[in-house]
């Protein structure tokens, strides 16, 4: 059963995905749990710069992509906060900014390995409208695939792309066969032609000008959202309760649903793979019939995913909500099963 599986850490998969995506340069400042992405990238011999802080790393990525280079950064926790400055510029200027975020516990330095508390920061952390692509992988394989996807979507649609993961996935070692994953690359291109003078501001004199730019960006966002938004959906046809989770908690929920089904409980599974854009249609469609009575949102935060789910679900859908929330803590399969059985 081993075949061509390699035994790799999550951070090794991220570095490999960046290489395979033909990324050219990384700018970053080390912070757990993403240090090994920086050190791993440096070890490949590709160009890199450890900047004086994350603010500099963010603007370095903006500069490099303006020059047509596939650049990226990685961070988490307080570093992710500082990077919001550059990410906001990227959102405003429509730059293909790619970042891998390893969520750690918060607020502040919190803990160093795991939580799901950077959802709001990733989705809506800038001083803008939150027009950034946010992917939340559940498995090592998906961590690799979505990192590739982030580069492709960033360069195709020109929105910042965030792979929102955590230290469990980044520090976890597992077997994977990369040879079976085939993804075509969207090439980088020069955003500013060398022979032309382009006025491309991130600041506007007139409020109307800014408003016009925001509306244009929103229009593009609304157009690209349906093809990009993705969810993993299982066992919903006759389900009475719908379990919603994202990221690695999703992996635990998926297994819990399998086991709940075995004991005759009609549980269904919905996992947004993209948090922004949210797979809203996929969720709404589950309520075409009236089998679903209750949604249970399960997450390692006090309700950041739940806020998004409640906001995105069509207002005419009447369904009860319950929550299993363990801010900063991992959530195990058995706990989920116990929670469902006792509710």
């Amino acid at each position, binding site marked *: *059963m*081993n075949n061509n599986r390699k*035994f790799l850490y999550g951070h090794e998969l991220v570095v490999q995905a960046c290489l395979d995506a033909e990324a050219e340069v990384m700018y970053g400042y080390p912070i*757990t749990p993403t240090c090994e992405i920086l050190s791993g990238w440096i070890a490949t011999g590709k160009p890199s710069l450890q900047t004086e802080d994350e603010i500099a790393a963010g603007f370095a990525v903006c500069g490099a992509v303006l020059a047509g280079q596939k650049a990226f950064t990685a961070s988490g926790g307080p570093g992710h906060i500082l990077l919001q400055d550059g990410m906001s510029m990227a959102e405003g200027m429509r730059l293909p900014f790619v970042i891998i975020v390893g969520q750690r516990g918060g607020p502040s*330095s919190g*803990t*160093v*390995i795991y939580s799901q508390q950077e959802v709001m920061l990733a989705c809506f952390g800038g001083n803008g409208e939150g027009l950034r692509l946010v992917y939340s992988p559940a498995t090592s394989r998906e961590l690799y695939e979505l990192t590739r996807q982030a580069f492709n979507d960033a360069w195709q649609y020109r929105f910042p792309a965030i792979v929102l993961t955590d230290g*469990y996935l980044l*520090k*976890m*070692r*597992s*077997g994977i066969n990369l040879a079976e994953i085939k993804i075509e690359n969207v090439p980088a291109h020069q955003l500013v032609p060398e022979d032309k003078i382009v006025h491309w501001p991130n600041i506007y004199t007139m409020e109307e000008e800014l408003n016009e730019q925001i509306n244009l960006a929103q229009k593009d966002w609304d157009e690209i959202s349906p093809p990009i938004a993705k969810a993993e959906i299982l066992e919903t046809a006759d389900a009475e309760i719908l379990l919603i989770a994202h990221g*690695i908690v999703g*992996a*635990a929920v*998926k*297994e819990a649903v399998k086991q709940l089904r075995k004991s005759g409980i009609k549980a269904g599974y919905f996992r947004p793979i993209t948090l922004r854009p949210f797979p809203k249609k996929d969720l709404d469609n589950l309520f075409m019939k009236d089998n679903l009575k209750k949604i249970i949102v399960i997450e390692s935060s006090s309700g950041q995913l739940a806020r998004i789910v409640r906001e995105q679900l069509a207002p005419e859908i009447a369904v009860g909500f319950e929550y299993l929330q363990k801010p900063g803590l*991992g959530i*195990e*399969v*058995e*706990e989920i099963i116990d929670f469902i059985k006792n509710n």
Partner: protein
Amino acid sequence: MILKILLAGDGGQGIQSISDLLAQASFANGFFISQIPNYGLEQRGGVSLSFLIISDEEIAYPRFSEPNVLLIMSEQADARTKKFKNADLPTGRQDLKLDINDFVEVFKENNILKQSYNIFFLGLITKFLADKNILKTEQIFELLEKKLSKKTNWEENKKAFELSLKINK
């Protein structure tokens, strides 16, 4: 078959190192493995845990609260693992429970260096896994040799490993 192994000690005691060797050998034998560390900001002095799962099926989630194998190498580690169900039950509920306090005499009698305690416990867990045909003792010894034979205290580490194989536990 699914085996959940929780190794707990202080940062610097070599918890992650022995977990790595067990993971590598089991992976090489075709098993599905997931391995995640858990530690705080401090490199040394804080609690260091390793969650290791060895299975013949795909693994759904890397964390667990009911280990089949539990190693406790320090007082802090003991306190931290209390919350894991069954952790305070006597051996029996757990397939293998190793507590450093039970080996104080053995270490003294055999002059085992503090720095080699982890290797001693690696040996005991290796024996347990070898009995279940998950890996071979020689496999772990080879990996150990590759990792440590050029470093200081190799003879002491080797002694600790060999002693563990002779101990009836």
